[in-house]
């Protein structure tokens, strides 16, 4: 109820705070109150109560509860790191092409010799031979790139929206699964997954390796450190992406 005395009310609030600070600094309650004789009767019982509140034995968190919290927090951190590593959205990557270390081909070596070849030999015949050689190497390199399956590997991540015995779908992307596909974790609709595979025509991909991050019911958690991929090429691929 308003008693028309705002000033004194705010004063006593201020004084009470000051007096409690003195008590906390080591003064006795009597000594703290003695500095404000006109408010002593008001603030002394409040200070005693505040001291009693302060001295009440606090509820203690049991060691088992603390351990459970620690475990749950660590799990949440692992999960978060997994999400950060895999990315939250369905994104198609072309890791090998993007991250392959620069490699100097025979063609480029020969090409670099090309300008100095006349000086070295001074022969039109040599030039002709070099030209033929460069052309041949170019064809060989093109063919070998097409033949190298690793060149066309891609990773794909997202949520499994539908599944059949031979294929899973991440949105419109069809991921073909067969008995050669290595699957880590327990796949199910709604689970987050990452796969490395070879793109096929249309929105399709032949999956070589698949990791399931977390199923909807939380039963499957991918290890923090991913299982090394078995082949040399894909291992290099994974190291670029997941470490």
């Amino acid at each position, binding site marked *: 109820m308003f008693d028309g005395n705002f000033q004194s009310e705010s004063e*006593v609030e201020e004084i009470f705070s000051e007096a409690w600070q003195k008590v*906390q600094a080591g003064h006795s309650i009597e000594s703290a109150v003695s500095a404000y004789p006109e408010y002593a009767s008001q603030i002394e*019982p*409040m200070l005693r109560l505040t001291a009693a509140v302060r001295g009440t034995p606090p509820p203690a*968190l049991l060691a088992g509860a603390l351990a459970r919290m620690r475990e749950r*927090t660590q799990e949440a*951190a692992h999960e978060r790191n997994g999400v950060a590593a895999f990315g939250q959205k369905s994104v198609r990557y072309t890791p090998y092409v993007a991250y392959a270390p620069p490699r100097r081909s025979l063609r480029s070596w020969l090409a670099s010799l090309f300008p100095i070849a006349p000086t070295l030999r001074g022969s039109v015949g040599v030039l002709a031979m070099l030209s033929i050689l460069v052309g041949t190497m170019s064809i060989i390199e093109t063919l070998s790139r097409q033949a190298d399956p690793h060149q066309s590997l891609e990773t794909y991540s997202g949520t499994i929206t539908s599944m059949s015995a031979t294929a899973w779908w991440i949105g419109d992307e069809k991921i073909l699964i067969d008995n050669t596909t290595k699957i880590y974790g327990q796949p199910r609709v709604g689970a987050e997954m990452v796969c490395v595979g070879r793109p096929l025509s249309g929105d399709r991909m032949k999956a070589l390796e698949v990791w399931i991050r977390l199923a909807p019911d939380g039963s499957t958690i991918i290890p923090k450190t991913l299982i090394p991929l078995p082949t040399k090429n894909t291992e290099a691929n994974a190291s670029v992406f997941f470490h």
Partner: protein
Amino acid sequence: MLQSQVWSLNCNLSLQYMDDADLVAGLRRGDAQAIEYVVGQYAPVLYRFAYYQLQDAMLAEDLVSEVMVRMIGHIDGFVLGQASFQAWLFRIARNLITDHYRARQRRPQVSLEAMLEAEPGYEPGAQDRQIEAVLDREQLVVGLATLTDEQRQVILLHVIEGWELPQVAELLNRSLASIKGLYYRGIQSLHRALAAGNNAQDNLKRSDKDV
């Protein structure tokens, strides 16, 4: 087993963080030691804060666990310099407590009966002196439940946890003057509630004797 022991030893040996920036950087990396530090350092404090408001040990434990999980989930959103890490954790806890009561659509119920059952050993008379001298935890829980949320939080943070009033003002987003008002009025209300509890108990004892 051996690995976990070594892990635990390593954690214990390095439970020191220079400042919030170090700690938050560790948490963003998913550093196990940073997590260990946060849980060890803040979970007991948050638990006290939650316990006195929820009046339930299990609920308080669950809430603190949830605070930790949310802390990890939102660590990228923590802005250094805007608030202390501790204040940020308490803000998460406050929001969860608010959500809890909103979901239940009611405030904590005050029960003098419960208070009397919790502490039946009082002698009649001189209630004030008794309140001031010894305060049982259950009494305090029931007494705190008679306060407004903000009064209760000011008392918990300032008196029990030892926060400075300006820190409390920052957390509750109130002016320092209004925090001082909440503090004083909260203590007054608590005093009245505890005295009423003691009076009720005295009456109960007298009626027992009459019977």
